[in-house]
């Protein structure tokens, strides 16, 4: 009796706030904290108005459940059949990561060069092979640096001539450099993950 009157008092105090109906709502959604849910259960036991309100909400939930449709049979099979083949599937079916092919090509080239040039080495077979690979890499490096140097030198010379001709050329060049930077930054921005992009734009993935 004492417990019931305490619950009634609690119920009266609780209903003075506007949140009590929200508790009922959240309880039916399974979103009420455990402590609040047990408090609510006690109040429902003694308060007919709260019970009536809850019945109305339950009826609403049931009515909305009746408005559901069944998924047509074979739906998931249709989805699976319609899936495209993606790059990660191609990769995993080949059993090789994406960088494997270029790496293999480099190794084959290096090995081929070593075998071709290494046959002429005077030292022991394996030492000759190693020396030849080093020589080959050194030669490649030197050739590459030379070409790069020549290219940049030529480029620098061209620019110098262009800028010296008029101030307008200098302005145009500055504009071109600025545009390239803007383009670069916008390309970096576009590489956001799809989830983030889909959550911030209305058209992505839709």
């Amino acid at each position, binding site marked *: 009796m004492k417990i019931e009157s305490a619950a009634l008092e609690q119920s009266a105090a609780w209903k003075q706030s506007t949140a009590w*109906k*929200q508790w009922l*709502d*959240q309880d039916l*959604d399974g*979103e009420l904290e455990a402590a609040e849910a047990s408090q609510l259960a006690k109040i429902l036991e003694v308060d007919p108005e709260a019970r009536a309100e809850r019945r*109305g*909400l339950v*009826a*609403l*939930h049931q*009515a*909305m459940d*009746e*408005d*559901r*449709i069944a*998924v*047509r049979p074979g*739906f*998931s099979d*249709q*989805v*699976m059949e*319609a*899936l*495209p083949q*993606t*790059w*990660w*599937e191609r*990769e*995993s*079916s080949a059993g090789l990561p994406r960088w494997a092919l270029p790496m293999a090509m480099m190794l084959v080239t290096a090995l081929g060069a070593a075998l071709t040039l290494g046959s002429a080495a005077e030292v022991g077979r394996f030492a000759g092979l190693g020396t030849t690979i080093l020589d080959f890499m050194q030669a490649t490096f030197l050739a590459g640096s030379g070409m790069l140097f020549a290219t940049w030198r030529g480029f620098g010379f061209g620019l110098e001539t262009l800028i010296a001709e008029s101030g307008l050329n200098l302005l145009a060049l500055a504009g071109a450099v600025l545009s390239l930077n803007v383009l670069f930054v916008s390309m970096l921005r576009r590489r956001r*993950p*799809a*989830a*983030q*992009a*889909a*959550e911030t734009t*209305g*058209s*992505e*993935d*839709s």
Partner: protein
Amino acid sequence: MQPPDEDLVASILKGKRLLFEELVGRYQGRLVNYLYRMLRNEEDAHDLAQEVFVKIYGALDRFDPKYRFSTWLFRVAQNAAIDKIRKRRLKLVSLHRPDTGDGDSGEWELEGQELTPYQEARNVERGTAIKQAIDGLPWEYQELISLRHYGELSYDEIAKMKEMPLGTVKNKLFRGRQMLKERLGDYLTD
């Protein structure tokens, strides 16, 4: 215990394509019903749900595990549904035929729209009343009720998806349901 969605996604990306069927199984009912509420047409809801799953699969490598799979899926679905509704509106044409001068003007003849027994059974008074009541709600309430009730998203997922404070989601859901209760009144006392 079922593996979380995000773990399934990671396995799929390692080449286990068939695991995607598990994800489809988890979400198909919720997604189809959510889209049905948005599009009001069973056929369209199924077709669009299929499109959404296919689109999601193609973009799985860009899925950021920081986000929940469910909120991503429903956001993509929502955008797809909105696009579909927009296109539908553009396709709306007048039913009046142009007068060709042969006295045969009037309305285009439409194919008979007979309901199947299943549709007839569904088309009960209460179901119609619920549809009308939900359709009559302001858009923001409709949307949240659909996400919660038909998409079965938690309050937290809805808050993240709609970028709303949790308290706002709770309030709007509550107010939307109160409006529905008032509008449906008699139908709920059966």
